[in-house]
């Protein structure tokens, strides 16, 4: 149930994001989801990709600072109340959410979550009968 998200450190310099995407493209690595967190000087690019281990190696060989981060992923109806429910479960446990992003597949949406205690979050979300996505399924989306 643990998803390995690819995180890349980026300076705010034009062309760096393009370089990452071109590198992954040339290796036929697919991107399921992507989000950028940024400050005025640098940013962190976060991606769910089809082959995170290989993607990390490829980017490392091109001198990027890369890390694999454990996140979880939930499939839920595309309605705000379901997103709220997920977040409420975690905040009731004092399991703080470091960041989250989501994308819609129409009727349903995929929520990506990074929280302070991943194992606990998985247990709790399962108990509330939420649908967690397996890594292999998410990479294929």
């Amino acid at each position: 149930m643990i998803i390995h998200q690819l995180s890349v450190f980026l300076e705010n310099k034009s062309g760096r994001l393009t370089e990452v995407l071109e590198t992954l493209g040339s290796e036929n690595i697919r991107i399921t989801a992507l989000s950028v967190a940024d400050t005025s000087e640098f940013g962190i690019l976060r991606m769910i990709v089809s082959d995170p281990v290989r993607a990390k190696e490829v980017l490392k060989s091109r001198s990027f600072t890369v890390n694999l981060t454990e996140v979880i992923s939930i499939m839920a109806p595309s309605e705000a109340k379901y997103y709220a429910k997920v977040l409420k479960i975690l905040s009731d446990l004092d399991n703080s959410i470091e960041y989250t992003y989501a994308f819609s597949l129409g009727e349903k949406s995929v929520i990506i979550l990074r929280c302070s205690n991943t194992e606990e979050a998985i247990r709790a979300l399962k108990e509330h009968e939420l649908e967690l996505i397996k890594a292999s399924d998410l990479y294929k989306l």
Partner: protein
Amino acid sequence: MEIWNRHFECMDREELKGVQSERLRETVERVYFNVPYYRNKMQEAGLGPESIQTTDDLHKLPFTTKQDLRDNYPFGLFAVPMSEIVRVHASSGTTGKSTVVGYTRNDIATWSEVMARTLTCAGANRHDFIHVAYGYGLFTGGLGLHYGGEKIGASVIPVSGGNTFRQVQLLVDFGSTMLACTPSYALFIAEALEEAHIRRDDLKLRVGVFGAEPWTENMRREIEEKLRIKAIDIYGLSEVIGPGVASECLVQEGLHISEDHFYPEIIDPVTLEVLPEGKTGELVFTTITKEGLPLIRYRTRDLTRLRYDKCRCGRTMVRMEKCLGRSDDMLIIRGVNLFPSQVESVLLEMSEIKPHYLLIVDRVNNLDTLELKVEVDEEFFQDKISQLEGLRQKIQTNLESTLGLGIKVNLVEPRTLERSEGKAKRVIDKRKF
């Protein structure tokens, strides 16, 4: 704590000043009459031997630099006939012609005396086995330690450098208690011990005296942890005498200078003015007992500061701080002296980063600006903005408190900063004067 020469090392500072002034007068007289180079320089400045009565007059005398030694290569600044010289050493000369130094029989005795103080300072005595892994030869390290060790009656093992495998074997077999070498070689030996699967209990080492190259507090901790010894910093340079000029005591709050032999001053490397106590600047030495090669106000290029308060060990000899860097690299930012090595030492103290950095100095609206680019370490990178921003802020705060200057810190991707062969480019000064 043992003190080798309580009479001088714990002397009342007023009394010491008298001793220093008397020795200075003799030295100035000697160089005036025996070294044409110094006589000419003094005459040009309108000075005679009588112009220097106490150490307060020292500032009137001109400086001596490494270039002066080179210009007078090899023996031009010697103050005695060669028949009086019993030993010659020379520096490696990587940055030009080598500098040659000569010793009379008395100079060798002085050197042994100050080295005996150094070793006693580090807690050694006649019961110690001293493993000397400094090079023996033209370099002053090996023989300097050797004579000092014999003087205190310790058992000296003159291993010299190289053949690390054998060094490790001897450390075990002879049960050496003190290690003397460069700090980087100490780490090398520590690794070799690990590789040879030698248990720490098989060693009797308890202390090491390390010098001859700059090293950080981080390196000290690493040596102390890996070898489980106390690591003592020692300082010296062949021009002044060799090792033995200054040494840390077991209190480890600065290095005691044997100032009854070597009179220290701190100067501003740009204006050449003598700086007051506590200010950081270039260390300058006047040798006040040497016969073979007396040096007047010799500019070491090493940066440090002095403190004159009495040490907890009981010694009254002035203490110098661990050297901060070389004056050749100094920048002046908004009137404040800044050395890239200061930046480096702050970065080295932080485990989250490696010291790959670039300082960029510029002038915007007549105001100097300082920017530091530092590479994010892969091992530290964990995908949180708050963590990176926290790190950036921490570097900035640590630097500002150490440098006393505002600085803008930016994190950059690893390996984006130029790596050059040998010396890395650490500073870009865009200001136009």
